[in-house]
């Protein structure tokens, strides 16, 4: 797993703009960082004196906490801005907020926003590093990287694997980032959902489409189960939660019919009994909590690499 190529970018905006070598460099670096969290003193001085600002326009607990833990284990100072409670309410634009953060001499902005392209726009207006922690339906690169990292750690490779992503593909930035990352590393990706929740022209990304989960799982090495956001208006797409669980829910009965060691991933938070049964979520095939642990190593790697990169997008 030796990788000698080097990182040049100041930002991580999405996996679409990365090549295979860059993705592998992040994964290899994360592999080296993982051990730090097992130490007695879980901290290295690599980002000492640097400031990381978590700028979150959408509520998020796990991603924000994961970035915060990652930054702190690298000895960076972390400032959290929940934009709902900030000057954004008073009408400040993202760009003004960004340039103000830059004027505070921060080094990295981690941004979560409900508009696709928000991170990319911010990165064009500031010289400091920008890391996309999820923008609209566009990308959530660190989530996909930790999914791929976990998969690679479990199976030992990505090339040649068949990964099924099941859930609301239309509104999922996790699905998009996973498709880019996995296909670049040579995996086959199948997206599975009711027709209304699959975007048009998704095949152009290299993913295949299947509307029958049992069919999709037949040759799968792993399944990434997305959270069904029934708090959104999904009524047009699907009658109700029970119906969804019956048709697409990942259950023990479904898994008994497929490859024995199939890996079950979920980005969290779980809706038990809607997209996944408790038996599966807590069962032997599940790597859901390992994903959380790996998320820290992956985000440490990303923060470290972008802090060294100079190249503007």
């Amino acid at each position, binding site marked *: 797993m030796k*990788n*000698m190529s*080097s*990182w*040049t970018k100041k930002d991580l905006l999405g996996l679409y703009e990365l090549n295979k070598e860059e993705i592998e*460099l992040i994964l*290899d*670096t994360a*592999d*080296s*960082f993982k*051990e*730090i969290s097992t*130490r*007695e*003193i879980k*901290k*290295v*001085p*690599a980002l000492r004196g640097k400031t990381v600002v978590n700028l979150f326009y959408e509520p998020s607990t796990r991603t924000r906490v994961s970035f915060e833990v990652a930054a702190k284990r*690298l000895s960076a100072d972390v400032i959290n801005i929940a934009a709902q409670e900030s000057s954004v309410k008073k009408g400040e634009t993202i760009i003004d907020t960004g340039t103000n953060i830059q004027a505070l001499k921060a080094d990295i902005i981690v941004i979560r926003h409900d508009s696709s392209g928000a991170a990319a726009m911010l990165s064009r207006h500031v010289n400091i590093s920008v890391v996309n922690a999820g923008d609209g339906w566009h990308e959530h690169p660190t989530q996909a990287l930790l999914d791929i990292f976990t998969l690679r750690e479990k199976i030992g490779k990505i090339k040649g694997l068949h990964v099924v992503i099941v859930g609301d593909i239309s509104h999922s930035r996790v699905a998009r980032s996973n498709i880019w990352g996995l296909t670049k590393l040579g995996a086959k990706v199948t997206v599975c959902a009711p027709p209304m929740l699959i975007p048009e022209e998704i095949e152009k990304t290299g993913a295949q489409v299947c509307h029958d989960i049992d069919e999709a799982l037949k040759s799968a090495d792993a399944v990434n189960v997305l959270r069904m956001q029934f708090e959104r208006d999904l009524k047009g797409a699907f009658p109700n939660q029970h119906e969804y669980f019956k048709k697409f829910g990942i259950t023990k009965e479904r898994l008994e019919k497929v490859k024995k060691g199939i890996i079950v991933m979920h980005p969290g938070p779980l809706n038990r009994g809607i997209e996944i049964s408790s038996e599966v979520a807590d069962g032997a095939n599940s790597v859901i909590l390992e994903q959380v642990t790996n998320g820290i190593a992956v985000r440490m*790697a990303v923060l*470290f*690499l972008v802090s*060294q*990169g100079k190249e503007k997008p």
Partner: protein
Amino acid sequence: MKEKAKILDKVGIERALMRIAHEIIESNKGTQDLCIVGIRTRGAFLAERLASCIEKIDNNKVPVGILDITLYRDDLSLISEQPVVHKTQIGFDISDKKIILVDDVLYTGRTVRAAIDALMDFGRPKEIQLAVLVDRGHRELPIRADFAGKNIPTSKNEIIEVRLQEEDKIDEVVIVERD
């Protein structure tokens, strides 16, 4: 860059390591509580070799670990080329152990400073001793080697290149002069 002189060949390196192994055992009165930690890249290979020398003499296998000091460097914000972070592998508890820290060349002492800081994050060793294959002088920090294979006075314009079979397909130490 021009190669000026060969300082050690394969046999020379072997002899130096064997002598260091003897000295380590002598000064520590055996191998009780001894651990060896090599600094990536070449220090890690030398650590393995030193452990097998010690085993030959004392019939006792001492644990060996590998340290990557990239994240502890004091010049991370200055260097232009992105360093690649490799794994640190210390599979044993270093608390109350005597650690022999191993590197190929001792020069400014900054790498050793970083390595000591890194080790301290793994626990509280009883002692840290430093073993190097070559001590070339020009220290910038108050650090010295407890065991040195060879002391070579150099000018700052020279580079000491330690080449090892495991990485470079040959065992030798040479002085190279910068143009």
